[in-house]
C-alpha cells in the first residue's frame, strides 16, 4: 500500500448538463486527489454535484473541460473503447440499489466483472464462489437477489465490485438502502478492502453515520469542493454533521 501516490487526480473539472438557458453547471472547476490505500468520502447536500463527480471520475460521463487522471493515465481524453476496457480492468462499482441482475444467481452476478476481463465462465464462477465466501455468503451462491436481504445483496454487490481486484472502487450511497447494522457491515468490508489492498475507495454518501469510516472527507457544495479534511479533523470541525461514532476497528 502506498498512501502517498495519487490514484485519482481531478483538475479544474467542469461538467454542464443541457444547453442555453436550460444549462445546469454541475461541476464548476473541481480539483481533487484520492490516494492509494485511502477511503475517500464525498459528502454534501443533494444536487451539489457528488454523483456527477463520481461519474466523471470513473469515466461513465465525459467532462466538458479539465482532466481526470486515474493511476497516471488521463481518462478524460481516452477513446471510448479504450476507456471501457480500462474501466473493466481497473474500476469496481457499488451502486445504491445494488443493481444486481434479478435473473442471475449471486454467483453469476459476482462473476460478471471477471467475464468482462476475459476469464472463462468456469474460472469466473469459481472466483465468484471464493469472493462470496469471503464476505460471509458461503452457501448462498445459488440464491437469487430476490431471495436475499438488503444487507446480503449489498455484500454480493461488494463481491462483484472486488472480484477482479480493481484499483479503484466507486461506491454510490452504499448504505442508503440498508439498516444501520447492515450498513456498518458493508462499510467494514469496504474499509478492509481499502486498507489491505493496493486500491482507492471513493464513497459518495449522505449517511453521516458512516463518516468515521473515511480516511478523508471531501465536502461539496454547488459544484465545488468546499472542504477536504482527514476524517477526524472533519468530524471535529463539523460536530453536528454526523451521529455518534461507530465502534469499529
Amino acid at each position, binding site marked *: 500500500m502506498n498512501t502517498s501516490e495519487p490514484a485519482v487526480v481531478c483538475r479544474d473539472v467542469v461538467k454542464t448538463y443541457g444547453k442555453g438557458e436550460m444549462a445546469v453547471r454541475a461541476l464548476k472547476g473541481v480539483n481533487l486527489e484520492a490516494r492509494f490505500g485511502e477511503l475517500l468520502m464525498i459528502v454534501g447536500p443533494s444536487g451539489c454535484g457528488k454523483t456527477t463527480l463520481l461519474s466523471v471520475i470513473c469515466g*461513465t460521463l465525459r467532462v466538458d473541460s479539465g482532466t481526470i487522471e486515474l493511476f497516471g493515465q488521463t481518462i478524460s481524453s481516452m477513446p471510448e473503447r479504450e476507456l471501457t*476496457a480500462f474501466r473493466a*480492468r481497473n474500476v469496481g462499482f457499488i*451502486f445504491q440499489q445494488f443493481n444486481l441482475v434479478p*435473473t442471475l444467481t449471486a454467483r453469476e452476478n459476482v462473476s460478471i466483472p471477471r467475464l468482462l476481463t476475459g476469464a472463462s465462465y468456469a474460472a469466473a464462477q469459481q472466483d465468484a464462489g471464493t469472493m462470496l465466501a469471503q464476505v460471509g455468503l458461503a452457501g448462498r451462491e445459488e440464491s437469487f437477489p430476490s431471495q436475499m436481504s438488503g444487507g446480503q445483496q449489498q455484500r454480493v454487490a461488494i463481491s462483484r465490485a472486488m472480484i477482479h481486484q480493481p484499483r479503484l472502487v466507486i461506491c*454510490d450511497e452504499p448504505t442508503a438502502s440498508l439498516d444501520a447494522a447492515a450498513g456498518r457491515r458493508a462499510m467494514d468490508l469496504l474499509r478492509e478492502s481499502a486498507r489491505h489492498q493496493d486500491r482507492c475507495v471513493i464513497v459518495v454518501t449522505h449517511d453521516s453515520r458512516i463518516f468515521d469510516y473515511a480516511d478523508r472527507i471531501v465536502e461539496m457544495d454547488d459544484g465545488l469542493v468546499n472542504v477536504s479534511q482527514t476524517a477526524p479533523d472533519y468530524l471535529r470541525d463539523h460536530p453536528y454533521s454526523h451521529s455518534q461514532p461507530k465502534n469499529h476497528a
Partner: protein
Amino acid sequence: MFRIALLMLFRDRAKYAMLVSGLTFCTLLMSQQAGVFCGIMMWTTATLRNISSPVWVVDAKVQQVNEVISLRDIDVQRVRSLPGVAWAVPLFWSIVQARLPDGSFQAIQLTGLDSSSFTGRPAVMLEGRVEDLRLPNSVIVDQVALEKLQRKGIDARIGTTFEINDEEARIVGICHTERSFLGQPYVYTTYERALQYMPAQRKMLAYVLAEPKPNISPQEVVRQVNALPGLRGFDHDSFFRETMIWYIKNTGIPVSFGTVVLMGIIVGIAIAGQTFYLFVHGNLRYLAALKAMGAGTPKLVGMVMLQAFSTGFVGYGLGVGLAALFGNAVLGNGTPPFYMPWQVPVFVGVVIALICCFSAAIGVAKVARLEAAVVFK
C-alpha cells in the same frame, strides 16, 4: 457474457414464454397456411400427376390442365405425324354424374385410357389389375371414390356396379390417386368405353399424350406441336407450372392465403417486437450497470442480438414442428391439402429472422443510446 445474456433471457420466464409463443404462433401460422396453399396448388395439378406423360397436346386456347376444350379425333394422327413423336395416344377426360347403387348421384372424373397401351394408367393399384379394363363395362375407381361411397353407406369393392348415363360400370380395380382440386374421384376406363358412356358430341377428345423419339427432347416435340394450327403442346413440367400460375393469377387463393401469412408476420412483429422491447426496457438498468462495469456497446449489442435470435430460433423450431405435426395428421385424412416443400421453411425462417432483426433493432437502439452514468441516478 453471452451465456449470461442467455441466462437473463431464459430466466425471465414470463417474457421468454411470451416471446417464444408469439414467434411459434407466427411460424405455425405462416408454415401451416403456406403448406395448405402449396397443397391446394398441388391439387390443381393432380391430373398431371395421376396421368403420366412427357408431352401433353391440347387445344390452342387451353391454358391449364383442368380446362378442357375438345379436340378432333384426327388430331391424334396429326401429332403422330410429327417427326419428333415416337407414339401418340388419345385420352378422354370429363366430369360426369354417376348414379350410385342407392340411387344418389356423384360427380366423377371419367378418364378414358388408350386400350392398347393404357398410357396414363394409375401408378398405384391397391386392388385388381389395369388390364382388367378390357373386361366388359369395367372401370377402376380410386380411394376417393371408396371414401365417398362409404360415407353414403355403400360398401364398394371389386364387383360393385353403378351407372354412368344409364350404362353399367363395374368396378374391377381400386387405385390410389392424388386428390384433385375439384374433389371428384377419378374413374378410369378405356377410351372407347368412355365415349360410350358419354352422350355423343362432335368432338370428344380431351388430350393427346405423346412420347418423343429417342434423343428428342419433350421441348422439341412441344415446339413441333405448337407449329400445328389449333394445337398447343406442353411438356410435363411446363404444364404443371402453367397450371399453377393460372390458379395464382385467376383465383383469389393466393390473396386469401397471402393475407393470413401477412397477418402471421404482423402478429409476429407485434408480439415479438413489443415483448422484446419490454424485455430490453426492463433490463435497461442492468445493461447500464454492465456498461459502467466495462461491457462495451458492441458486447451489449451482441448480447441483445443473441437474445433475440435465440428466441427466434426456438420459436421457429417449435412453429415448424407444430406445422409438420399438423401436416402429418391431415395427410392421413387427405384433407385439408398440405404440402411443405423446402422453400416454405426457408421462407418462414427468413421472415422470422427479419422479425428477430426488427426486435433486436429496437433493443439495440435503446442499448446504443444507453448512458452508463444513468446507473448513478
